[in-house]
């Protein structure tokens, strides 16, 4: 594991960048646990102070320290993204596996539902749902409703992978070696599915954080919980930009850009590295060098 990380870090600039930035952001989010301020409370510090030694990133109009607030926001956003990713990947993988292995009418039924969700415009429906739930929105609830629209992509892809694996000769070899379906899936097919799951996991985190940010703009998020989205929302509400409190709006925007960029680069480089084809190539090359 460590060797792989080292290799990736050394030979893939995208990974090196993404990984470093993510580490920094994770560090910041861990810092939130040592925050001297409660992120939910207002008027803890003087308002609208520009960045200074005491308040590195300044303070906002609600009397909060922006630096310590953003550490909470990063933590909550990543948490929300991961939660959504876990839920939707579990559902998506399950549906994809069932459709792929059962085939026939089960497959057709599942896939037409799946495809419908893909074509359905997600934002309006998400807006509708979160408006209905406005007063009860928490990180967990948002993750659940976001999952409603992120599982189908995974389901579709897992099914495609399964279908192609099922027709490959080694699957038949496994069958005639007396291996049951479960064992075949776990031992033969999983190595091909995992790289995809890893990449998709990161992509779903990315998507979910982006979606939450978008919903938060409309005021449709858990507004008391600091996330990247709600930080921007409050900055907008107080018209930070017009009033020249640029540090308030700039901080979450920059953090968001770096977070999205690094997650995306990580997903690209990891999926390329773990792709069975590149993996095989690498195995062949190692054979030569030893």
């Amino acid at each position: 594991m460590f060797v792989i990380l080292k290799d990736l870090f050394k030979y893939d600039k995208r990974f090196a960048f993404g990984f470093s930035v993510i580490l920094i952001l994770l560090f910041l989010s861990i810092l939130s646990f040592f925050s001297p301020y409660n992120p939910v409370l207002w008027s803890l510090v003087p308002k609208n102070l520009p960045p200074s030694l005491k308040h590195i990133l300044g303070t906002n109009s609600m009397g909060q320290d922006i630096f310590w607030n953003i550490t909470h926001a990063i933590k909550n956003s990543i948490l929300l993204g991961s939660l959504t990713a876990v839920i939707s990947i579990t559902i998506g993988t399950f549906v994809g596996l069932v459709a792929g292995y059962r085939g026939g009418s089960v497959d057709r039924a599942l896939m037409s539902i799946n495809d419908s969700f893909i074509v359905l415009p997600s934002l309006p429906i998400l807006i509708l749902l979160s408006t209905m739930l406005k007063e009860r929105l928490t990180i967990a609830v948002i993750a659940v409703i976001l999952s409603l629209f992120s599982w189908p992509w995974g389901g579709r892809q897992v099914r495609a992978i399964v279908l192609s694996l099922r027709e490959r000769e080694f699957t038949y070899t496994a069958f005639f070696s007396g291996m049951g379906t479960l064992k075949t899936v776990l031992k033969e097919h999983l190595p091909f599915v995992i790289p995809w799951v890893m990449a998709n996991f990161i992509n779903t985190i990315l998507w979910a954080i982006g979606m939450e940010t978008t919903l938060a703009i409309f005021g449709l998020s858990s507004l008391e919980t600091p996330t990247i989205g709600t930080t921007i929302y409050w900055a907008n509400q107080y018209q930070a930009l017009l009033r020249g409190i640029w540090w308030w709006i700039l901080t979450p925007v920059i953090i968001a850009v770096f977070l999205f960029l690094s997650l995306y680069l990580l997903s690209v480089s990891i999926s390329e590295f773990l792709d069975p084809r590149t993996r095989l190539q690498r195995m062949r090359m190692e054979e030569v060098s030893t």
Partner: protein
Amino acid sequence: MKNNNKLLVVSDLTKVFIIGGRFLGVKLVAVNRESFDMEEEKPEIFTIAGESGCGKTTLARMILGIIEPTSGKIFYKGKDITKIQSKEDRLDFMREVQPIFQNPFETFNPLKRVESYLIETAINFGAVKNRSEAFDRIEEVLQLVGLSIKEVEKRYPHELSGGQLQRVSIARALITNPSLLVADEPVSMVDASIKMSVVNLFKDLKEKYGVSVIYITHDLATAYYISDRIAIMYRGNIVELGPVEKVMLNPLHPYTKLLIEAVPEPDPDLKWKEEIKLSAMEAKEFAKLGCKFSERCLEAKERCHEITPEKIFVDDRWVMCHKYK
């Protein structure tokens, strides 16, 4: 029961593929009501030959139980294998009938070591009790195919040659002591210089160990070399079936004739003389009435286009042609 001393009886077997959904799909008859059988007492190499898309692979896969026939029955040692439900029965059947696949690099998962399949087979079929016994059995079968465990151990598929892999594939199939091997184009991807050693292996298996082989191929030269009987398939039908010498040296069906004439002889003294005609666009012969070969047949008469010919027993073989009625 008449099936008593038969190893395999295939009767009226049909496979219809529906491409593109049940409502909107297009029907494709891959195998059309075909029958043949193999004796239990006398091991043989039975070749099913034909061009791509003739249904030979579909037929083989139905015999292996990988795909379900649309209609018809397959009896293995008197037992209808299309009716197998329980896992035990399935394992019992697989103990007797094992496949060899076309592409040795695809037969094994490229991300796994090849020996894992050997161990799995040995353990799952109860041939051995534990891993060390498994290795004894594996060494035994590997030697049978001219390999040793040292050459295979801890190797990934890409570290072995195509010929070696195909031997490992055969060795794996032999672990359970099967009576029938179904080999789908087993040498078409093997290098020329080692091809015959794999082909000879099948011959040895039959002669020394009494294993019967269904050999699916488009390579008529190797088919002649190893088989006892041959079935020539065209568009889902066996058009000629009989002893290989009879069918290939003195073909009766016009299609068999065409096929054998088209095989290039590896001898500069036996070059082709006359030219052959090829049909310009591929006609939709699957859906056609009458004899499916009639469009291309030089001897076709009117009835050939309208009536499907019956199978007739002529000169030691079955022929599906109006000419011999």
